[in-house]
């Protein structure tokens, strides 16, 4: 498991997509939004910080998983099937790689908020914030992999972009839900991206994470994970 994860991580760090989606994009958006709306209002800056970290983590994890489509297309998965690597090991490594890639986007947005927006939190709050947000990436990491296993190399990019935007917009990462009709909140509460940001807000406020949030996240992981396992089995059986 360690070997495939290391291999994946090395490849990801070298790819330009990594810098665009997990480093440059969320960081630039956070700095743009916070300088436009933050203006010394700590609550707004913190809100934006969590939203943009969540946005970065969602895009990074989905974009990483969806790369699997290209790997399948060139026959890499068939090559892996000729080794003792088990299906569980493969899927776990893939999800772990997506989680790993999401981490810098969270950390960088937090770092930028300290350096450029003067955010100061105690160590315990930072630790909780990082752990809550990072664990919240798990459902989207699995969803990204699902796209990677379903799509062709050509369609994966489009599918992941659509999913990324849908989760960010509808999950309230781009626009505060309080500005939108109440129905939108109901939609948002069904999405893992919404709860990822909520976990962050909870961590900031010192609250325990909500049961509804954990249940919703768990449901996404179970359903998407089940589909991934099913799809993986069928994919290799056909090969």
């Amino acid at each position, binding site marked *: 498991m*360690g*070997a*495939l994860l290391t*291999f994946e991580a*090395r*490849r990801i760090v*070298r*790819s330009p997509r990594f810098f665009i989606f997990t480093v440059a994009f969320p960081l630039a958006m956070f700095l743009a939004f916070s300088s436009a709306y933050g203006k010394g209002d700590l609550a707004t800056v913190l809100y934006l910080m969590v939203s943009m970290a969540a946005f970065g983590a969602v895009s990074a994890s989905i974009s990483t998983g969806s790369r699997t489509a290209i*790997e399948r297309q*060139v*026959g*890499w998965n*068939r*090559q892996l*099937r*000729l*080794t*003792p*690597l088990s299906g569980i090991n493969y899927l776990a490594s893939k999800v772990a790689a997506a989680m790993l890639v999401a981490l810098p986007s969270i950390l960088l947005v937090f770092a930028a908020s300290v350096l450029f927006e003067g955010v100061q939190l105690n160590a315990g709050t930072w630790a909780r914030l990082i752990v809550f947000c990072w664990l919240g990436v798990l459902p989207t990491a699995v969803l990204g992999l699902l796209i990677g296993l379903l799509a062709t190399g050509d369609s994966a990019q489009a599918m992941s972009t659509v999913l990324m935007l849908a989760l960010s917009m509808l999950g309230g990462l781009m626009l505060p839900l309080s500005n939108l009709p109440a129905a939108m909140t109901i939609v948002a509460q069904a999405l893992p991206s919404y709860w990822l940001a909520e976990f962050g807000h909870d961590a900031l406020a010192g609250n325990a994470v909500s049961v509804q949030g954990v249940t919703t996240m768990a449901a996404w992981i179970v359903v998407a994970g089940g589909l991934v396992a099913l799809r993986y089995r069928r994919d*290799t*059986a056909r*090969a």
Partner: protein
Amino acid sequence: MNSTDTVTRGAAVSLRGLVKHFGDVHAVDGVDVTIAPGEVVALLGPNGAGKSTTIDMLLGLTDPTRGAASVFGRPPRQAVASGLVGAMLQSGGLLDDATVAETVALFRAMYPKPLPLKETLQRAGVAELAGRKVGALSGGEKQRVRFAAALVSDPDLLVLDEPTVAMDVAARREFWAAMRSYTDTGRTVVFATHYLAEAEDYADRVVLLRSGRVVADGSVSQVRSLAAGRVITARIPGVDETVLKTLPGVTEVLVRGESAELACVNSDTALRELLSRHPQAHDIEVRGAGLEAAFVTLTRQEAA
């Protein structure tokens, strides 16, 4: 029954009544082959003969509709998982953004008792490419990296599907030289190929497939003689084509001026009779018809 079991257990590869249907398509239609440890076997056949499907079942990538495959007495997946089998498939691919060393090291990490990385790269002839990205390699070089991936577990059985397909002549020669040094250590190899010369030069045994069935199985010379026998050419002054046709063992006659070409199922009988009837015949040559002719004859679908 007992003796068959013993044979099967001792076999490197055992395919018993192997059948694979994809809907109405009978890709493999009853293949029985037993391969002893140390044999180098070429799997020959035209496209669609069932070579790749047979290899897939042998590696446990596809389950047979009926029949069973076993490798060193184990189910294929188990043999693969324990590192007994190394394989190189046509449809298997490598990732362009990883280096050669990273790629082979990844495969290496998955096996219980792998070869050292350096040795693997050397054996496959890619040691000097170790730091290069796979995407920057030529087709032949990529094939050799895949060969390294197949070798890294130090397998007892190597399965190669069209291993030299992307290589030029020099690369092909190098590949087979690397292969030779591996088979000299008593390992078993099964390879599918389009190049008859490769089967002729490197295989101990040829299994010819057509429409999912084995149509010939034996040494290269056995398979060759099975199909086309030999060809006699001679210069025969005053030769009569109709007379030549009546010679025993002759199947086809071609006469141009005084030179005659006789295709024979039994060239010994034909030659004795030819000389006694035409003592003036000279410049006589007898040659094997070549695997190519055997291949064409045996894999041609019967008309009607």
